[in-house]
């Protein structure tokens, strides 16, 4: 995990000056191992590092309900998440509207790792008074590997995300 963190940091640090960056927020609902439900709200940053590759970072607040012996235990807290995203394909069929399919993978410090797919659209026209360049809306599905409470397993999360390009 440390090596992966270092890799993301190095890639982010060597990004070109004219790279594409976007900032936004997302909301997710998921089911994790050990009878755990996870609701997450986060602020996310994507930074293009090369071609179709992006480094990603997110600060996310999690609300977690875990059922233990017929009793639900609720906890909440923040988490930092680091990862990479790769644009798999883009459709330019519609004017000013790109349809994108991305793959993503990453880690979180609480011993979780994820891999998933994102489908979304991006409005790229900028005719208005602002100098900003695009708006993205994505829906995503993640598989999450976790060792929560020593129970190693795979869960999933559905996410809705929106982002503004710089």
């Amino acid at each position, binding site marked *: 995990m440390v090596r992966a963190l270092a890799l993301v940091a190095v890639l982010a640090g060597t990004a070109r000056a004219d790279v594409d960056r976007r900032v936004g927020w997302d909301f997710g609902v998921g089911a994790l191992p050990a009878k755990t439900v996870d609701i997450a709200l986060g602020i996310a940053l994507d930074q293009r590092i090369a071609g179709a590759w992006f480094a990603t970072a997110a600060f996310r607040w999690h609300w977690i309900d875990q059922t233990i012996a017929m009793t639900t235990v609720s906890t909440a807290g923040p988490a930092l998440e680091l990862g990479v995203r790769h644009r798999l394909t883009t459709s330019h069929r519609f004017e*000013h509207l790109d349809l994108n399919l991305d793959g993503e993978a990453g880690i979180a410090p609480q011993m979780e790792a994820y891999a998933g797919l994102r489908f979304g659209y991006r409005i790229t026209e900028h005719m208005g008074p*602002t100098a900003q360049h*695009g708006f993205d809306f994505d829906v995503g599905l993640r598989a999450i590997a976790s060792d929560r409470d020593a129970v190693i397993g795979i869960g999933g999360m559905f996410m809705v995300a929106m982002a503004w390009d710089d």
Partner: protein
Amino acid sequence: MVICAAGTAAAEDQVTPWPRWAPEVGFGAHVSQIGARSEGGVDGVLALSLGLGRWQLFGSATLGTAGVNNTATTPALEMAVDGSRAWFGGGIRWLARQYAPERDFLIEMDLHAQTGIERYAFGDGTRLVRPDVAVGVGWDVRSPGLHQLTTRLDVRIVFTPTNEDALVACRGTCDPHSGSVAGLDMGVTFAW
């Protein structure tokens, strides 16, 4: 790192500012904790905002339902206690990002912080008044040329202090020393 990047990016860009005055109505939902038990309900929202460039001050009031589920501590005595929740307070909103696909159509992201007082009144006669502090994000679409008509979706994390509120609306065995954890609040509102 994420928050710093959000704050520094596009700082020099020219943006269409918030409207000077903007009344706002809508509805929302909240989930929180009272002691170790989950609480949730739906709310009506009324607000008034004052725009100052990229910043906006707002005051808001909500009135809605509240329900406490006691299954967290007493699974053998599954009982819900219903009631009402009133909240009023104020805060500040910052226009973090703005995108204008058309001159009169803006898609915006805000970051906001607010504080207020909430009052619960449950059907069993118990009451609870407590302060809260919240931080959150919002997404809106706004039409400056059409009376600043705005449709907004807000989501925020709500922090309430730890105290002895665990005995409010308690059924069965409730732990009076259990503290509150952060709740979630969201709303869909319309401003003009």
